[in-house]
């Protein structure tokens, strides 16, 4: 490589809050990347900015009965039911694999009660090789009649506060889009001390088999993901990025470098690639490469020069 090329390679590192800087703004989204092992044969995990592992709970969870997925136009519904081996087995059997990489490991955490979230966070925080936490607040609070934590500003505040008090790791709070005004929730978790906000989780949807007169999913409803939700995710990221000062991480239907750059342009500090992995196992790396190429061609020397540069006026 000659000196000219070296000079042109854009700086890709971004700070995503709480003192955590990742090598580039592309992460693997939780629930679509397992614990890294499944995709390791297809690309070098060191090429992505961060891996957000599949959600971890205090106890093992078997997940929902099948059928668990259904394809819909430009997207898919899933109702996996947060199947996972529980935090202890995760730390013992899954996490060591990811320690061999220089990529940041962010552990996605969920629970059914405030206490459960807190206990998982405490256990994970005492473990080596974890660089951050992402809190999935799209779960029902069983002690509050099943209201989803992330749909109530007070509950969202409370859970963020609890988690923050239980860890020194940077905390990303992942928001559900199934709310009337996502900015209210974003401001609430920021006030409670969230280091960053990732959005969006899946949109609740449904699909029906009219011949058999049954829902396609055993769980009846499921979370919609994929390119179908990208315009909604982009709109919500744009709204939230204007309202909060902490870094915002864009998630939802990102399939190409151009998709990812749309999110950065409306103010996302980084993005997560999820469902795209299912149709292209090296989607995240293709997006990093595509973004670098675009920046070089357009003489953008640092990704941070690109973030939030949307011209809203015509």
């Amino acid at each position, binding site marked *: 490589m000659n000196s000219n090329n070296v000079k042109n390679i854009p700086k890709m590192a971004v700070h995503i809050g709480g003192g955590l800087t990742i090598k580039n703004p592309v992460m693997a989204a939780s*629930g*679509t*990347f*397992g614990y890294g092992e*499944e*995709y390791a044969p*297809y690309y070098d995990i060191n090429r992505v900015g961060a891996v957000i592992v599949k959600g971890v709970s205090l106890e093992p969870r*078997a*997940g929902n*009965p*099948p*059928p*668990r*997925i*259904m*394809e819909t*136009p*430009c*997207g*898919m519904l*899933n109702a*996996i039911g947060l*199947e996972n081996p529980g935090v202890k087995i995760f730390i013992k059997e899954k996490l060591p694999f990811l320690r061999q990489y220089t990529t940041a490991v962010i552990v996605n955490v969920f629970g059914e009660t405030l206490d459960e979230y807190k206990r998982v966070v405490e256990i994970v925080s005492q473990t080596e090789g974890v660089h951050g936490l992402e809190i999935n607040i799209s779960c029902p609070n069983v002690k509050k009649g099943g209201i989803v934590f992330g749909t109530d500003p007070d509950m969202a505040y409370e859970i963020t506060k609890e988690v923050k008090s239980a860890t020194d790791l940077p905390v990303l709070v992942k928001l559900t889009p199934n709310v009337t005004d996502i900015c209210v929730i974003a401001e609430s978790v920021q006030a409670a001390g969230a280091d960053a906000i990732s959005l969006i989780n899946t949109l609740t949807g449904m699909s029906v088999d009219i011949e058999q007169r049954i829902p396609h999913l055993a769980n009846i409803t499921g979370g919609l993901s*994929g*390119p179908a939700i990208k315009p909604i995710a982009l709109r919500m990221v744009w709204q939230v990025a204007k309202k909060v000062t902490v870094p915002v991480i864009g998630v939802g239907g990102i*399939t190409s470098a151009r998709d990812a750059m749309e999110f950065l342009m409306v103010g996302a500090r980084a993005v997560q690639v999820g*469902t795209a*992995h*299912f*149709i*292209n*196992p090296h989607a995240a790396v293709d997006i990093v490469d595509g973004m670098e190429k675009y920046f070089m061609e357009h003489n953008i020397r640092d990704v941070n020069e690109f973030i939030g540069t949307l011209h809203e006026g015509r």
Partner: protein
Amino acid sequence: MLGKIIRNTKIIDGHFLLAVKLPQSFQTPMPGQFVMVREKGRLDPLLGRPFSVYTFARMENAVIVEILYKVVGKETSILSMLKRGVLLEIYGSYGSAFNITTNTKKVVLICGGIGIAPLTFLASHYWGLATGDIDVICYLGATGAAKLVGVARMEELCQGVFISTDDGSMGYHGTVTDLFARDVTSYDSSNASIYACGPRPMLKKLSEMLSMCALPCQVSLEERMACGVGACLGCSIETYDREGKSTYRRVCKDGPVFDIHDIIWK
């Protein structure tokens, strides 16, 4: 990985044979393994579809994968209309393979409809072993004579092919499991290995029949899949673990080939 369609021909009504040329780096599939296929760049339908490999050939500069498929929905319908030269995204080879043994005298293949595809690839591997002392016997079922697919190739690879049709238009009048049931007592666990692929009700019936005897049987299953590599947990099915307790296993990664008695049939 990108592959180019070199042939996509209708074999019988609703059934096609697709041949795709892929780079040499494509991993050699074993019988029972599958590939995820989608048209390059298409976002609707979004996900790839899992197809078991029908034939595989490695050439000097490329490999050719053949897929025998049935049109069942939107994606296979679109696939059936694609012409030579169209680019496909193909990933694989994924999943578990059939356990091939030389420690047997009789290999019994039980195929329901398009379930013949992976079992034909398996038959060709047994053919390739050329030990001469293994008989490969095939039981082949379809709804009717017009729906029988892949018979000629199976006949080339097997010592015996027995056909059943639900409507009696060819061979035995009834299901393939009923046809096999008439012969089941002539096989025993010390010298026969059973392999099956077909619709879920057929495999369930076979499982019930085989629970009475000790014949070993591997089945290849199909499920709706998203990732194909074991990450999304979308294709999980209920199975028995070693202690006989119910546990979910992924058809894409833990399967698609399973011991028939490990499956909790619904």
